[in-house]
């Protein structure tokens, strides 16, 4: 049999060019160009606008002036809400993590599944169900009023505390996830060693367990603080106008664009500071305590009284976790406009669900969101995979910069992203191919693309890092070109990571509300804005049916991701 060798081509000029060490910068320049055009440039435009047309620092002076204190109050309220949210989330999240990881009690299994339910609630839908449940005319306060024949509802969620409760419910999972990962990573032999050395239970907690959990708790705290500062939906629904995000929204709707820009710039400054702190903290964290392999032993709750208490608490926990979703489902069947002063909606129908897919006007926002989410996600895939490959496999100067630029849009509040886009794309410019983007179909996909920039990037780089570089080298040495190696080897092996990130980006785009509300146009109204409007038109049934649809979508995605991450064991050789 004849032997076939690969005939080398003569050294063309192109071949020599591609081999030059600077060629890599040609390859990565599109990535930087995209980040420059859609992250830095809009940001810069907002920054310019924040100084107003002629007045210099006037806007900043006004912001910090003590005569009209609305802005300072807003900054203070935002910080105040965020600090309290961090504390309450930490208490709930870390306690849950400890109970579920270290103790065995009746109801533990079901709780440990349901504890992540808040992650399946899109922010807007979550807040809505909370107002239905615990708001001034909510089911629980009215129910209690009727039950005990009271003059007025005994309590209701509103104002700042309403925001904090919603934050706690939706964000404690960040603490729960990091803390339970850290607890799983705690080597039980450390505790055994401490006991062996004569330390008491309390001492072990103070001196061994808590110090080892500190890094993960601090990381979660920074994250929750950042997300709380950016929170917009909860203050909007609970009518807390004096927060930073609401002030930006109000300035913008009142037409005071310069002030909105100033407020955005200040809020961005806070967010980016936190992002940098977070990255700095994560880098100096040491992982030495993460010894693997040994499972944590759970102590069983033995005494009869404690078992009863734990059963009751578990039941209450399950109810609290499930109520928001159950409420949404219940109300989604209620006839629009019939639920006024009753405890529960009086009339039920299946029409809303039929209308979702048959009525052109109800279907329209779903279709809009699917389309815009699709466009944004395709962008995220292309950018994310390319950036991840460059980041993990290529060697070039400016890696840290690339990494930070990708993370920045994620750290920026959605409100700020919207204001930046308005500042940049209300006029024709080169990055929009000389078009005005505001008011067109393209502005929302662009906003979604920017907001979810890191999702595909991060999941893909995680899979790439797991894949040994020698696998690519093997393919190359067998004669495959770079492109063939990428297609036949790299893509199949990182597919799970790419898909996981893609699904997440898509689902988030479908539910995006914060930026959408500021820049949507009526012809391409997205799903989330439609929910918001139905809500204010007292069409609770339709609004909730939309919400349930979103939750189902999220659950499907979460299930697929879970399957993917389990099925990827084969790629971890």
């Amino acid at each position, binding site marked *: *049999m004849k*032997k*076939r*060798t*690969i005939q*080398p081509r003569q050294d063309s000029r192109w071949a020599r060019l591609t*081999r030059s060490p600077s060629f890599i910068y040609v390859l990565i320049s599109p990535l930087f160009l995209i980040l420059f055009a859609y992250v830095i440039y809009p940001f810069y435009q907002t920054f310019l606008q924040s100084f107003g047309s002629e007045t210099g620092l006037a806007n900043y002076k006004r912001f910090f002036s003590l005569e009209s204190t609305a802005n300072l109050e807003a900054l203070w309220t935002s910080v105040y809400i965020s600090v309290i949210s961090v504390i309450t989330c930490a208490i709930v999240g870390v306690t849950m993590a400890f109970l579920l990881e270290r103790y065995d009690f009746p109801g533990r299994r079901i709780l440990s599944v349901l504890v992540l339910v808040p992650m399946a609630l899109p922010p807007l839908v979550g807040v809505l169900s909370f107002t239905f449940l615990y708001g001034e005319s909510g089911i629980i306060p009215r129910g209690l009023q009727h039950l005990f024949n009271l003059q007025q509802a005994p309590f209701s969620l509103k104002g700042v505390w309403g925001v904090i409760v919603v934050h706690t419910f939706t964000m404690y999972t960040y603490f729960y996830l990091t803390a339970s990962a850290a607890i799983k990573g705690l080597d039980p032999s450390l505790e055994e060693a401490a006991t062996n050395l004569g330390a008491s239970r309390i001492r072990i907690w103070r001196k061994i367990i808590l110090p080892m959990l500190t890094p993960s708790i601090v990381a979660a705290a920074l994250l929750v603080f950042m997300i709380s500062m950016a929170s917009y939906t909860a203050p909007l629904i609970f009518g807390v106008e004096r927060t930073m995000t609401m002030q930006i929204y109000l300035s913008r709707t009142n037409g005071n664009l310069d002030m909105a820009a100033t407020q955005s710039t200040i809020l961005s400054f806070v967010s980016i500071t936190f992002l940098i702190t977070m990255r700095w903290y994560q880098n100096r964290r040491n992982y030495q305590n993460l010894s693997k392999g040994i499972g944590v032993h759970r102590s069983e709750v033995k005494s009869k009284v404690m078992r009863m208490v734990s059963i009751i608490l578990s039941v209450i926990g399950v109810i609290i976790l499930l109520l928001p979703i159950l409420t949404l489902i219940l109300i989604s069947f209620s006839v629009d406009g019939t639920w006024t002063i009753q405890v529960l909606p009086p009339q039920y129908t299946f029409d809303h669900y039929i209308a979702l897919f048959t009525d052109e006007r109800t279907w329209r926002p779903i279709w809009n969101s699917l389309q815009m989410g699709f466009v944004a996600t395709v962008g995220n895939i292309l950018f994310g995979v390319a950036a991840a490959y460059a980041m993990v496999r290529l060697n070039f100067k400016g890696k840290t910069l690339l990494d930070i630029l990708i993370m920045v849009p994620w750290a920026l509040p959605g409100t700020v992203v919207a204001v930046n886009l308005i500042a940049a794309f209300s006029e024709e410019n080169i990055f929009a191919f000389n078009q005005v983007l505001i008011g067109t179909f393209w502005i929302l996909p662009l906003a979604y693309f920017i907001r979810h920039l890191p999702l595909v990037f991060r999941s893909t780089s995680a899979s790439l890092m797991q894949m*040994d570089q*020698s*696998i690519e*080298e*093997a*393919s*190359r*040495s*067998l*004669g*495959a*070109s*770079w492109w*063939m190696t990428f297609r*036949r*080897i790299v893509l*199949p*092996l990182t597919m799970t990571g790419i898909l996981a990130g893609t699904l997440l980006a898509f689902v988030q785009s479908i539910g995006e509300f914060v930026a959408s509300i500021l820049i949507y146009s009526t012809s391409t109204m997205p799903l989330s804005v439609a929910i918001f409007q139905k809500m204010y038109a007292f069409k609770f049934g339709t609004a909730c049916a939309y919400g349930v649809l979103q939750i189902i979508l999220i659950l499907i995605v979460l299930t697929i991701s879970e399957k993917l991450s389990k099925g990827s064991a*084969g*790629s*971890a*050789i």
Partner: protein
Amino acid sequence: MKGVRLKDITKMFGNMHGVKDLNIDIQPGEFFTFLGPSGCGKTTTLRMIAGFYYPTEGKIFFDERDVTTLQPNKRDIGMVFQNYALFPHMTVNENIAFGLEVRKFTKAEIKQKVDKVRGLVRLGQYGERKINELSGGQQQRVALARALVIEPDILLLDEPLSNLDAKLREETRIEIKRLQAELGVTTVYVTHDQTEAMAMSDRIMVMEDGYIQQIGTPQQIYNRPMNRFVSTFIGESNMIEMKIKSVDREQVIVENGHGISLKGQLANSSPLAPMRVGETVHVSIRPEVIHQGEGENVLTGTITFVEFTGLSVNYIVDIPGITLKVMIINTGGELLAIGDSIQLNIPSPSLYFLGE
């Protein structure tokens, strides 16, 4: 089969040198081994031959052709990686066929070649297995088959046995050597294991800190090491500093400050050793060349350590000014104990003289 020639190769990583001023000439069909401790530059050199690094200075030739900056996929090289680097999403057959598909063979040709090479590495019935269903040794053979099936000009093996357990390592070692001899392919082998290197190679290059220490046959490397590094890295050696008392055409007599003198042969000295009266040299004596009882170079000492391995009895013996490791082949006799006195002799051809 192609020869490989490295000419004045230097590879810098930032300000650190990976390897420096390498000149190697590997003959067509030769089994050539890079041997050295980790970080010595052996893998760096291999990766330059494979095309994963380009040298900072110097040129690489396959026969007469300059391949210094040729892309790795244009080099027609078979490579076996330390961790095998098998494609985890493909079956055994698909892994082996990959290089053939790149070369645009027909389906039938591919099947025939894959089947043949699978038989060669004794993986006959494993064609449809997934990679993660194979044992370490089987994975290793898939990697070998994948590299061999393209009938490469040059076969590169990067520590291919280091992930196998001891018994399997020995079997696979013999297997690789058999295949290489059968196919006659030029082979470059990287290892830090001197036994492997000695057993398999036609020639060995010993490296340290990016520099070549010695190139030679296993025998030359073991029996006539160029310097102290080679002598101690390959096998065990007693290294004794002594002064030359007299030299003539054949005989050398050395002594230490404690009245011990030894007789050796001038021919058994490294070219780098200063063989003149009054100079200090290092005398290398392998533990296995020291015998018990009367003979040449008789020494008497006290035993400070005894170790019985079955094959041999190892002693450490204190002699004024010298501590000797001694290995006596076990013939079933009585062991001596710590504190016992022992008489040793060293045949004069077994002394080897080294410089600094």
